[in-house]
C-alpha cells in the first residue's frame, strides 16, 4: 500500500439518499451531453480534476547532464501516490503521436505533491529525446498509477544495489527517500540507520553517469558505500568481480536495475550461489523488423505464417481466422485491430509500425490489417 494513498480514501457515506441524488444528477448530465460524456466537456476546463482520466502537467524541466533531464510533473487529483523505486507509465505526444513509456520515480513523496522522472536521451529514443530536449512546462501528459515491485524492503538490512546507466534512477528514488538532502546537507533519519547499503554503479564513462553527484555525496557522508565502475576506465564489469568489489556479498540482498544482458548474468551468478536477487528491466528486448513472420491472434490462439507481401487480413482469413474487414484497400478502417507486439509494414507506403508491450495505450497500436503485412513476428489482439 502506498504511503500517500491513505489520504485519498474517502469515508463511505453512511446514508443512501446522497449517492442516489448524485447518481441521478450524473445520469441527467449524461443525457444532456449524449453521445459524449460530461467529462468530455469538463476536461476542457480542468483536465486534472478528481474523476478525470489520470493526467499530469509538466511544471519544470531541468537538465541533469548533457543528455539527461529531470521532468517535474503535477499529477491529477486522483494520483494515489507511490513508493520510491516504483515506476510510472507516461503517455506523451511526440510529433502528434501518443507514445507510452515507463520511468522510475526518482524521489519519495514530495511536499509539493508533484512527481518527477529523470530521463536520459537514448540514441533513436523517440520519447526520451523528446522529453529531454523538447518537453515544455505547461504540457499535458497522460499517466497511469505508479506500479512496480522493485522497492526497498522496509525495516532495514544489508543491501547491494547494482545499477547500470539510467538503471540508477529507481535506486536514486529509494536513496533520496532514505537520506533526504536538504540545503544544509544530508538529513539523517532514524529509520535510515537500519540500512547498510553498497551501490555498484556501472556506466560507459564518468560524465554520462546521471545522479553520480548524489551517490558521491551520500558516499562522502558515510551513508552508503559507492563503487563506481566506468567501462572506459575499468573495463566492462564481470559479475564474478563482485566478490572482490563487495567482500561481504553473501550477507547482502541484491537489487539490480539495468539492461537485460547484465541482469541475466547477475541472475546466473546469484542462482549458482543461492543469493537473493530482485531485478528491474525497463527497456524491452530489441524488436526485430524483417520481411514477413508469424502472426499470433490472442483470442483464437491461432498463429499464422505470413510473408512480407500478403496483408495480415488475407493470411489470417486463409488460415480460417474470423476477421473484421471492409473495403480491403485501406480506406474504410473496418479491419482495424490492435497490434499488441511486433512490427507490420504498410504495403502501400512501406512504412513500418511497431508495438512494444507497455509502450502503447490500451490493447496495442491499432493497425489496418488489410494493407499491413507482417514485418517480423506479431501478436494481434483479436
Amino acid at each position: 500500500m502506498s504511503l500517500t494513498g491513505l489520504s485519498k480514501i474517502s469515508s463511505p457515506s453512511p446514508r443512501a439518499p446522497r449517492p442516489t441524488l448524485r447518481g441521478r444528477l450524473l445520469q441527467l448530465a449524461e443525457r444532456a451531453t449524449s453521445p459524449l460524456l460530461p467529462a468530455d466537456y469538463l476536461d476542457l476546463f480542468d483536465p486534472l480534476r478528481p474523476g478525470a482520466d489520470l493526467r499530469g502537467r509538466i511544471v519544470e524541466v531541468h537538465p541533469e547532464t548533457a543528455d539527461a533531464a529531470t521532468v517535474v510533473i503535477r499529477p491529477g487529483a486522483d494520483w494515489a501516490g507511490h513508493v520510491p523505486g516504483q515506476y510510472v507509465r507516461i503517455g506523451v505526444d511526440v510529433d502528434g503521436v501518443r507514445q507510452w513509456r515507463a520511468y522510475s520515480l526518482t524521489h519519495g513523496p514530495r511536499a509539493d505533491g508533484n512527481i518527477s522522472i529523470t530521463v536520459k536521451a537514448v540514441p533513436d529514443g523517440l520519447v526520451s529525446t523528446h522529453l529531454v530536449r523538447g518537453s515544455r512546462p505547461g504540457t499535458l501528459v497522460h499517466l497511469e498509477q505508479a506500479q512496480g515491485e522493485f522497492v526497498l524492503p522496509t525495516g532495514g538490512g544489508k543491501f547491494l544495489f547494482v545499477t547500470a546507466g539510467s538503471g540508477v534512477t529507481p535506486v536514486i528514488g529509494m536513496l533520496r527517500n532514505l537520506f533526504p538532502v536538504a540545503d544544509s546537507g544530508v538529513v539523517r533519519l532514524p529509520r535510515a540507520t537500519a540500512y547498510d547499503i553498497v551501490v555498484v554503479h556501472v556506466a560507459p564513462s564518468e560524465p554520462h553517469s546521471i545522479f553520480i553527484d548524489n551517490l558521491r555525496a551520500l558516499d562522502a557522508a558515510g551513508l552508503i558505500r559507492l563503487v563506481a565502475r566506468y567501462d572506459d576506465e575499468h573495463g566492462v564489469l564481470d559479475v564474478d568481480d563482485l566478490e572482490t568489489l563487495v567482500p561481504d556479498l553473501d550477507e547482502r540482498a541484491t537489487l539490480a536495475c539495468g539492461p537485460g544482458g547484465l541482469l541475466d548474468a547477475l541472475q546466473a551468478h546469484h542462482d549458482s550461489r543461492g543469493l537473493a536477487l530482485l531485478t528491474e528491466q525497463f527497456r524491452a528486448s530489441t524488436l526485430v523488423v524483417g520481411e514477413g513472420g508469424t502472426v499470433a491472434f490472442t483470442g483464437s490462439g491461432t498463429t499464422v505464417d505470413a510473408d512480407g507481401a500478403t496483408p495480415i487480413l488475407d493470411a489470417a482469413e486463409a488460415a480460417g481466422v474470423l476477421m473484421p474487414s471492409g473495403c480491403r484497400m485501406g480506406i474504410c478502417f473496418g479491419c482495424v485491430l490492435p497490434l499488441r507486439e511486433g512490427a507490420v509494414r504498410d504495403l502501400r507506403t512501406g512504412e513500418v509500425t511497431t508495438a512494444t508491450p507497455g509502450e502503447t495505450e490500451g490493447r496495442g497500436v491499432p493497425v489496418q490489417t488489410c494493407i499491413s503485412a507482417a514485418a517480423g513476428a506479431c501478436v494481434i489482439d483479436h
Partner: protein
Amino acid sequence: MTVLQKKTHNPIGHLTPEDIEQIGVELDAIRQSVIDTRGAADAAYIRKVIATQRKLELGSRAVLLVSMFPPAWVVGTAGLAVAKIIENMEIGHNVMHGQWDWMRDPKIHSTTWEWDNASPSEQWKHSHNELHHTYTNVIGKDNDLGYGIMRVDEDQRWVPLYAAQPLWNFVNACFFEYGIAAYDLELGKNLATKERRQDPDFRARATVTLKKIRNQMTKDYVIHPLLSGPSFLSTLGANATANLIRNLWTHSVIMCGHFPEGVETFERRSIVGETRGEWYLRQMLGSANISGSKAMHFMTGNLSFQIEHHLFPDLPSNRYQEIAPQVQDLFRRYGLTYTTGSLPRQVASAWKKVFRLSLPNGALRRGRGATVTDLPTAPAREHAAA
C-alpha cells in the same frame, strides 16, 4: 464498360492504361508527401477544433436557457446550429474516416468516436466508408447515389414514383440525419420481406439505431428544454431549428459532392478487376468540389475538397486545401475535368438534375439525357426496384 463510356464523348477515351497507372503513381506521391509531414501542428489543429466546437455548443446551450428572450433565441440557435454542423462535418465525419487515427489518441479515434447524429457511428462507417467510398458512384453498389429513393442517372429506368423526387429530396434534406440512419439500416431492402424484417442481425442493428435516436431526441427535445424552465417551448423550438439548419446544410454540401452536372457514374461490371490507378480515376471523375472562402471550406468539413477527400479519404481534412492545386494540375495535364463551382451554383446544378431525372429520358428534349437511348442495364433495374 462504364456508363460514361456510352456517352457521345468519353472523358477518359484519350488515356492509355499506362497513363492511368501513372496517375496512380503521381497521386500516391502526393499522399505520401502529406503523410511524411503529418505531425504536431495537425494534432494541435484537430484538438483546437474539438475544444472550440464544445465550448461553442456549451455557450449556445447556456444562452438558450433564457431563449424566451428573442435575441437569446437567435444567438443561441445560430451558435448551436454552427456547433452541430462542425461536430458532424469537420470533426465527426473526418474522425470516423480514421483521418486522425495516426495520433493514437483513444479519444479521437475512428474506433471509439460517436457523433451527434441519428445514425450510430458503427453503421455509418460501414455504409459510408466501406460502401460509398469503395464503390463511389457505381450504380447499384453506392447507395449515396440517390439514397435508393431517387433516380440519379439516365440509365436508371423511370417509374412514376420518381416524378415526385424533388419532393422526396426536400423532405430528405429536412430530416437528413434520419434519412441517413434509415439508409445505413438499408430500411428499404430490410423492411421489404418478412424474412428480412425478422433477421436477428437487422433487428439488433435497428435496436441500436432506435436507442441512439431516443438518446439524441431526449437531449434536444426533453432535457435541455426542461433545464430552460419557463423557456421550455422556445428552447425546444431552437433545438429543432438548429437540427433543421444542420440537416439542410449537410444535405446541400453532400449533394454537391456527387450530384452536380459533370460528375460521372459507373456501371457495376466496370469495376471488376479495377486497378489502383483505375480506382483513383473513378474517384476523380465521380466527385465535385465547391469553391469558396476558408470559412466555407471549414463549415463543409472540407468536403468542399470532395475530389481530394475521395482520393485520400484517410488524410487529415486540414491538408486537403494545400494539395488541391497539385491535384488540379494533374487533372489539367491528363486532360480531365476538375468539376468545381460555388456553393449556390453546385446546389442549383444538383437540384436541376433531380428535377430533370424526375421525368422520363428525353421529356425535356434537351441536355445529355436525350442522347442516351440504351436500354436500362441490369444493375440500374435492380437499383430502381430497391
